[in-house]
């Protein structure tokens, strides 16, 4: 199985350990993983700000980089969703259509494609799971509390396979953290307040770590935790699943 690793720009630059964990995890499950070296970004920062037209070059670059693989896997629900919903080029090629259906967020790839039943991971900590909105409501990685529907959670089921890990229960299991892309600076007051409230829910429930399938939410929550000099830390789910 030929898997292309799609690493969001800010993970590449600021959280390389998340990308390394993703790569190693996929390799553990026998995937032949390649990392196309000319990748940059999915284009979401521009598109979500209303500048979709400025992401044309990003889209074309993405198609160039990621054509011809069996699957494309990314440790980000948000970037994956963006590709699924908005990867369009002027040429409307079959390649881009294929990419939109082949791109998977890491935990959904592990659960739905690799059908992972057991993990060798060990992580003896109390962990709060943050449901990143685009992964949850966009990709349906977990059931949403608004809906009257049977509960499930792909990242949750994987975390439950980790030895020693204890998931904490949150008061608001799927409230947005307030990152929101450029929202985090254009609506700084609300963004920061949402982040503080999310952090407080995890800290109150004594989480040692906050984890998520999206590093952008965690980067925002980490900024708040560090400012508060909190003992609670953030960790991407790939790092937990690859731990021990």
């Amino acid at each position, binding site marked *: 199985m030929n898997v292309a690793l799609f690493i969001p720009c800010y993970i*590449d630059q600021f959280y390389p350990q998340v990308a390394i964990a993703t790569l190693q995890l996929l390799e553990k499950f026998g995937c032949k993983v390649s990392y196309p070296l000319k990748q940059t970004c999915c284009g979401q920062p*521009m598109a979500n700000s*209303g*500048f979709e037209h400025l992401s044309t070059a990003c889209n074309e*670059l993405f198609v160039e980089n990621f054509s011809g693989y069996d699957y494309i896997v990314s440790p980000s629900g948000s970037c994956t969703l963006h590709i699924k919903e908005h990867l369009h080029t002027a040429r409307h090629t079959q390649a881009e259509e294929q990419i939109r259906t082949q791109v998977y967020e890491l935990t959904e790839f592990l659960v739905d494609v690799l059908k992972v039943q057991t993990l060798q991971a060990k992580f003896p900590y109390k962990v709060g799971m943050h449901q990143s*909105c685009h992964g949850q409501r966009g990709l349906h990685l977990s059931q949403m509390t608004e809906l*009257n529907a049977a509960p499930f959670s792909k990242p949750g089921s994987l975390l439950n396979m980790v030895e020693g890990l204890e998931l904490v229960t949150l008061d608001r299991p799927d409230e947005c953290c307030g990152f929101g892309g450029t929202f985090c600076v254009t609506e700084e*007051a609300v963004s920061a307040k949402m982040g503080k409230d999310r952090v407080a829910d995890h800290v109150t429930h004594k989480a040692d770590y906050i984890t998520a399938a999206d590093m952008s939410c965690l980067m925002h929550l980490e900024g708040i935790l560090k400012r508060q000099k909190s003992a609670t830390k953030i960790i991407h789910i790939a790092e937990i699943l690859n731990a021990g």
Partner: protein
Amino acid sequence: MSHTKNTIAHADAAAVFNKDEARVNWHDKTLWFIREKRDKISHSIDEWEQLREYASQIKNNVLSNLSEYLQQFEANAITNGITVHWAADAAEHNAIVHRILKQHNIDRMVKSKSMLTEECGLNEYLEASGIEVIDTDLGERIVQLAAEPPSHIVLPCIHKKKEEIGELFHEHLGTEKGASDPEYLTAAARQHLRETFLTRRAALTGVNFAVAETGEFVVCTNEGNADMGAHLADVHIACMGIEKIIPQQQHLSVFLRLLARSATGQPITTYSSHFKKPQPQQQMHIVLVDNGRSIHLGKEDFRNALKCIRCGACMNTCPVYRRSGGHSYHNAVAGPIGSILTPNMDMKKNADLPFASTLCGSCTNVCPVKIDIHDQLYKWRQVIVQEGYAPTAKKASMNVMGWVLSSPKIYDMAGKAARWTLRNTPFVVNNKLNPWFKEREMPAAPKQSFKEWYKTNRKIHE
């Protein structure tokens, strides 16, 4: 539109709102409580998601056949003895109401359950013409006494604490100073309004649903003021946006089950009042208002926002609304639904609103008529930028970002430079010019990007 002479952008109003963090916490918890009530009651009905789907399909049908249903409604309403008026915009709506009142020499009117008249600025218009309007619903009355616009379409005074309401009532209704017991205050308001009802000859109500096949309309209330006003007055004027039409009476069985559960977590509103024909010696008027709706209907990406039944569930669930308050949306309809309705009315004035969201999608999930609210927010952003309403600084930074991310080489260099800066000269970014840094630390910058790591550690094996 009313109350919006000096529009403050959402982000700025939200920053002011957030200066009192304890109050933000209170506001958030109050609305979250309603969201939880809504969850509880909607999760107790097995067919909830099916009901939402029915409601959505009925409304889709309405939007596709709006003119026919409106004409059918008009014909049946006229047969029933109702006088039907058509208003192209807010000004026409206000003039029609004014004309009816003048014909009857009425200079005082009671009003209940109408966000449309807020949208049209009717109160200010009539007051300027010497006509007194008394809002009879408690929440509306409170904000009217405070000379403020409603902050929520269902819970207009949700931004006010009971102590503040006590103070307001002490000042205007003569209740005891310092009294804040909700029961006491409600009784005082009721007493005061009872007198008002008995002396007013005209009553204006909103409309929740107008039934095309019967020519009747339905008003859903908890306090019963719409009934009391309409029954005691000589003239009943009902104002509705043209999208409030439903084809058949049986469709109420879907909407009445969804409306109150979504709005407040009640099984149904206390009163679902059906008005079909005037009583003897009484006049009944209905004003069908367009005010931008036909234009909205013509916008394919945005038309289904007109399915809205004004339950307010998207506001209660919106993490941004809960932490910025209804007034920050500077419109009669606030929150996520307001942010997709109002750019159609005035794109320049409301260009900030589709950006007042993280696109988390919770609004779409609670919407009882399945409006794709967060997708429309995304689409409005594109339209607003295309139409030239993006701030200049944002345009410039987006151009740079687009340029950097379109070239792998420039991207690698820019990334390296950014990490170097963060490591070696952090004061360049860790200052008050950087909104991120105000309440958050910047991420630590590693020496090596993943790509650099990969080139040294893996490329050799390939």
